[in-house]
């Protein structure tokens, strides 16, 4: 199978997947800001759910949240009020990024774009960590605002 370079056109299915997730499961609108290319040393959010993309294209999709927002998002999923970041919140953020990536993967397949495989999700949390990536890769960030707080979608892919 030929390798497909992920490009900016491939970002839209991931953005649409964020909107669908928030509309359908959280009952909250997510408003998209302007996408931007991130510098290599861009600081991640306190809570980051990540999934590796492989198959006909390679990259990473990541959803980053301030800790308080991650707690509110998972609380909304479970229809209860959570007060602290714990294993349940971490698990919920993993599921959130899993649903975003899975939904986008299906949209890309429908468009005959890039058939993709996804890794199991990983969640990183803390106030002082860095996410390193190969030199020929770029990160694009799409910021969102919502009633649950601000968050961001980040996509890493190989530069064309």
């Amino acid at each position: 199978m030929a390798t497909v370079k992920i490009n900016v056109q491939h970002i839209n299915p991931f953005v649409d997947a964020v909107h669908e997730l928030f509309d359908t499961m959280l009952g909250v609108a997510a408003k998209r800001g302007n996408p931007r290319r991130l510098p290599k040393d861009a600081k991640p959010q306190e809570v980051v759910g990540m999934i590796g993309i492989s198959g006909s294209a390679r990259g990473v999709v990541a959803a980053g949240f301030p800790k308080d927002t991650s707690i509110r998002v998972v609380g909304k999923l479970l229809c209860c009020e959570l007060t602290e970041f714990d294993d349940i919140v971490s698990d919920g953020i993993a599921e959130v990024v899993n649903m975003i990536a899975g939904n986008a993967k299906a949209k890309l397949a429908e468009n005959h774009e890039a058939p993709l495989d996804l890794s199991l999700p990983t969640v990183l949390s803390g106030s002082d960590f860095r996410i390193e990536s190969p030199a020929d890769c770029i990160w694009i960030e799409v910021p969102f605002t919502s009633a649950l707080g601000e968050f961001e979608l980040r996509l890493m892919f190989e530069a064309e």
Partner: protein
Amino acid sequence: MRALVVDDSAVMRKMLTTALERAGIQEVDHAKDGQEAVDACKTTDFEIILMDWNMPNMLGIDAVREIRGSGKSTPIVMVTTEAERKRVIEALQAGANNYIIKPFDANTIVEKIKVVIDKAKMVT
């Protein structure tokens, strides 16, 4: 009535348990992967099984094949992010009775669960 929720996500297990309770299921057992689901089906008869696709140890689709291979006709609903048409067909061919794509609306999943249970009652 007793149901089995199979998902490696604790949050998803809780969400699906709530949906099953809203659909009138009183008892809900949990499994974290396909192998645990296959093992649970050997000892317990469930009215419905909600099955994720991507899980460690054994995929949900493989668990569906094993459960059907053992002769069990328990209604199985796939609840998964695998939204591609070919995946839906693969699951139905393996023996799944219905297919729900994540993300899902809570009311929609409750209604689908009720429909699957009602259909099973009509057959038996």
